[in-house]
């Protein structure tokens, strides 16, 4: 299998603004080419668009707007982990030899139809994500004797980290009291426990080893990929306190990269809600079951940005189709040591965790210098 590297990226700010999906896709793509004027667009073999937007033919549309005539052009949708699914597809095109250079652009509008999975009638009247998040929170707190105040720390930490991310939706820091006093959505969930849908886009360019080394002396290699889908419906989750798809995807990605979880220096994980971060940290094996909150609290107290340096979904905002790509860009910047105020201490190996619909599907990537 040929090696695949990330050679360039571009992004838009995450906002609540009303822009057409086509304009958003173009925004981060244009930023990528502006930052990397040497890229020859004629060498781009595939353009993959990640979004839940209902507009059609978006990859050919973006290709035309950006002046690219790719061989392969199509969209990829898998709710909240569309972004990393697209990166996995790009990896596959390159490693199979079908493409040498692939552009992946993800974008979403604040009013994305991907927020509600209408098909999942097992959820009855409770289809909005706040209901599965409430059930996870209640179960997790019950199982491990965790308080709402402890879960609030995840949100406090991630908003604090987002303040150092110029593209983040959140511009404010909050205290545990602020989280506890924010709007009550259910008995187990407050507004500041949630990531917010928003408008945003993110782009990356992937290439084979040969092409990557022609364009940059700092490519970031995708050395591990793990994916698992256990179901589509939330109520098929056998555990409400851990994430099976995440555990399996994490093990596969680490195995492929020949790495151990203790070798991961920095990680972006899918904190759609406060409770998700400890559940993910535990399911990936960063810490023991029930100790994810302690890990987050310790990192927060030490001002260590190791988990969700860009502010996670809670701080950055969650434009579904762009999220996995934005997470990946953050790890690229961390490994290239260009993350400025968010920079962690000399990371060599990073991890991206991106998931869909109450952890029914997870993707994990391992990235290395």
């Amino acid at each position, binding site marked *: 299998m040929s090696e695949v590297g990330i050679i360039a990226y571009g992004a838009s700010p995450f906002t609540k603004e009303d822009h057409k999906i086509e304009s958003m896709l173009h925004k981060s793509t244009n930023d990528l080419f502006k930052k990397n004027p040497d890229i020859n667009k004629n060498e781009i073999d595939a353009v993959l668009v990640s979004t839940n937007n209902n507009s059609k033919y978006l990859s050919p549309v973006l290709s035309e707007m950006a002046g690219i005539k790719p061989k392969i052009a199509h969209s990829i949708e898998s709710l909240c982990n569309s972004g990393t699914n697209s990166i996995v597809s790009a990896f596959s095109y390159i490693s199979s030899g079908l493409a040498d250079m692939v552009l992946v652009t993800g974008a979403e509008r604040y009013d994305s139809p991907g927020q509600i999975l*209408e098909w999942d*009638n*097992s*959820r*009855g*009247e*409770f*289809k909005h994500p706040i*209901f599965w998040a*409430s*059930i996870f*929170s*209640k*179960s997790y707190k019950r199982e491990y004797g965790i308080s709402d105040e402890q879960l609030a720390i995840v949100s406090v930490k991630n908003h604090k980290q987002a303040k150092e991310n110029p593209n983040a939706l959140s511009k404010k820091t909050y205290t545990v009291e602020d989280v506890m006093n924010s709007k009550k*959505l*259910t*008995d*187990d*969930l407050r507004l500041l426990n949630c990531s917010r849908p928003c408008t945003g886009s993110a782009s990356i360019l992937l290439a084979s080893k040969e092409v990557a080394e022609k364009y940059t002396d700092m490519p970031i290699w995708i050395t591990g990929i793990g994916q698992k889908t256990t179901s589509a*419906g*939330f*109520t*098929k989750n056998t555990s*409400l306190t851990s994430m099976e798809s995440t555990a399996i995807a994490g093990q596969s990605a680490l195995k492929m990269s020949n790495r151990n979880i203790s070798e991961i220096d920095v990680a972006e994980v899918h904190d759609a809600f406060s409770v998700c971060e400890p559940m993910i940290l535990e399911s990936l094996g960063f810490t023991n079951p029930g100790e994810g909150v302690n890990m987050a609290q310790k990192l927060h107290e030490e001002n260590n940005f190791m988990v969700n340096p860009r502010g996670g979904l809670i701080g950055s905002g969650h434009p579904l189709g762009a999220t996995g790509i934005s997470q990946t860009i953050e790890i690229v910047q961390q490994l290239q040591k260009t993350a400025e105020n968010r920079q962690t201490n000399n990371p060599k190996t990073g991890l991206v965790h991106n998931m869909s619909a109450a952890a029914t599907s997870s993707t994990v990537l391992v990235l290395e210098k």
Partner: protein
Amino acid sequence: MSFENELEKGQFYLPECISCKKWVWPPSEFCDRCNGKTSLKKEEFEGKIIEFSKQNDNYFCIVEFYDSIRIIANMTTCPKKDQIVKILKCGINDGGYFFHII
């Protein structure tokens, strides 16, 4: 689908595979294990509350039937974990299912 025809009339009948007797959920014409046809079991099912939370005055509960089928249902009185419940009311509203338990 016959499950939805019954649900629309306020009846909660679960589909079972005719060949291998597996309870099939979400409701489907075909069994996800042996691909055989399913038929509805017309009886009153008892479920168990696995977890719950509350929004305003309403509790929303994960209810499990036959150790395999899980739904989220509405309950007006305070639930207890592992409590045995029955469907009080159910139906289809705007294309989406709803379940109330007691």
